[in-house]
């Protein structure tokens, strides 16, 4: 790799990072605003016009807050765990193709940070690692609430990871590749949503559970566990958990777009914008869901994951495989 390539890579990284972090920050504001409106109140409106500087104020506040470590906590793990949660969604974004290759001054710049040939497996692997941030944070806090939150998180994420993986198998079967670039390319004609609505629903639900959003926010259930695994965190470390969650929402939108909505393909608009347009509804949908649905009971959560999602996903695989074979023959 030459130096220009390195600079281009760095530039891509910076742009993506900046976009993601800003997006996450403002997603918080959007969520608060929308939740407010869902509940017939205006939401934050004191910092700047219509509250647009609220994320900045929150950031400053969180930065200035004291970073406390509870007595008896496992110090190192306690300090590291939030980083895992924030890092994983950022790394996930590395394999998402943002648009068609860019031809600039006889140089082809792929609008993806890394086109991994096992990109899909990479995504599954990373999302399975993100559990550690939750579990270790919960364990290292030396708090019963946190520990319970961590345990719930572990069980829930393992359970839904399976369904998520299985829901992606038909996509791979259709695209014939694990590479996200190939998957996007395979959807040039039509998005997979049209042929795989069941997979889409399963992926959406299990991704929701992975993101620990309502109605699956049992690990941090405020009214029973008082924020669960991050009960003991304060200041910037707490913010890392928070930022991780919101980046995760954006990444989730990106993955949905890539797997089911044809990625950057679309009429009129250039690729990255098209992708952005497809990403945006997903966080909004999650916020809407948060405003609508109550939290599941824990046994309902497990039952739903194992007794509904997994079997349906398996049936979907078999049916898809049969159809593909039938069509090919």
């Amino acid at each position, binding site marked *: 790799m030459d130096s220009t390539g390195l600079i281009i890579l760095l530039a891509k990284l910076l742009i993506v990072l900046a976009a993601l972090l800003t997006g996450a920050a403002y997603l918080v504001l959007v969520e608060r605003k929308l939740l407010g409106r869902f509940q*017939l*109140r*205006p939401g934050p409106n004191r910092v700047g016009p219509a509250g647009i500087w609220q994320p900045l104020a929150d950031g400053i506040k969180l930065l200035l807050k004291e970073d406390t470590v509870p007595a008896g906590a496992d110090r190192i793990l306690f300090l590291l765990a939030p980083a895992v949660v924030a890092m994983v969604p950022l790394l996930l974004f590395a394999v998402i193709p943002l648009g068609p290759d860019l031809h600039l001054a006889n140089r082809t710049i792929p609008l993806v940070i890394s086109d991994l040939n096992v990109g899909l497996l990479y995504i599954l692997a990373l999302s399975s690692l993100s559990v550690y941030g939750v579990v270790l944070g919960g364990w290292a806090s030396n708090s019963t609430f946190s520990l319970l939150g961590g345990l719930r998180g572990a069980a829930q994420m393992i359970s839904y990871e399976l369904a998520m993986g299985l829901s992606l198998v038909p996509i791979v079967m259709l695209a014939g590749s694990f590479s996200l670039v190939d998957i996007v390319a395979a959807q040039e004609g039509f998005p997979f949503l049209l042929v795989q609505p069941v997979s889409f629903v399963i992926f959406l639900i299990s991704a929701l559970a992975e993101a620990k959003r309502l109605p699956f926010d049992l690990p941090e259930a405020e009214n029973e566990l008082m924020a669960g695994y991050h009960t003991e965190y304060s200041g910037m470390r707490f913010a890392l958990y928070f930022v991780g969650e919101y980046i995760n929402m954006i990444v989730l939108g990106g993955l949905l777009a890539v797997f089911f909505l044809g990625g950057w393909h679309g009429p009129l608009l250039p690729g990255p914008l098209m992708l952005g347009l497809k990403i945006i509804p997903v966080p909004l949908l999650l916020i809407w869901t948060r405003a609508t649905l109550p939290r599941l009971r824990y046994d309902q959560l497990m039952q739903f994951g194992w007794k509904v999602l997994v079997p349906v996903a398996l049936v979907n695989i078999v049916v898809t495989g049969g159809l593909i074979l039938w069509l090919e023959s």
Partner: protein
Amino acid sequence: MKVDKDKDEGGIINGLLGLAASYRVTLTQLFRKPLTESYPEYKRPLPARSRARIILTRDKAGGERCVACYLCSGVCPVSCISMQSAEREGGRRYAAWFRINFARCIYCGLCEEACPTLAIQLTPDFEHSCRHPLDFVAEKEDLLVDHGGKDGDYDFYHYAGVDCGEGKGTHEAELPPVDIKSNLP
């Protein structure tokens, strides 16, 4: 036989319709006008009996109503009222000093109920946040107002039956003092 409600109550379709209905409900809320009254810009007029800042009122003649009987401080559940009673010229009992620590006050209104002279009253004025805790400590001069509050006509000393310089038997529904030297039957 117990019906498993989780599993079957109209099947998947009904369940999905239920979900959709709830999404519809929240969505319609999104487009309604917020009910919030933006506080500093709009101040809702409070009922006269709202319980906030405490005042010490005066009777019609302009005298302090408070007789420093310690009933309000005795009944105060958070012990935020303290005072020292003393005697004025003429024998009228009054508060030499009277202090309410609003940082402790829970605005329960028990002092107002206990007050036999209607001196201590709670008003709807609730805006008194300060930066320093000591600024919450209100002395008599901060509390004393120059009106009668909710029941301006009442004057304890018209009914009390104690002589504060105006002489015995001059209050409402009182007979003139007994002549103790009389031998008449």
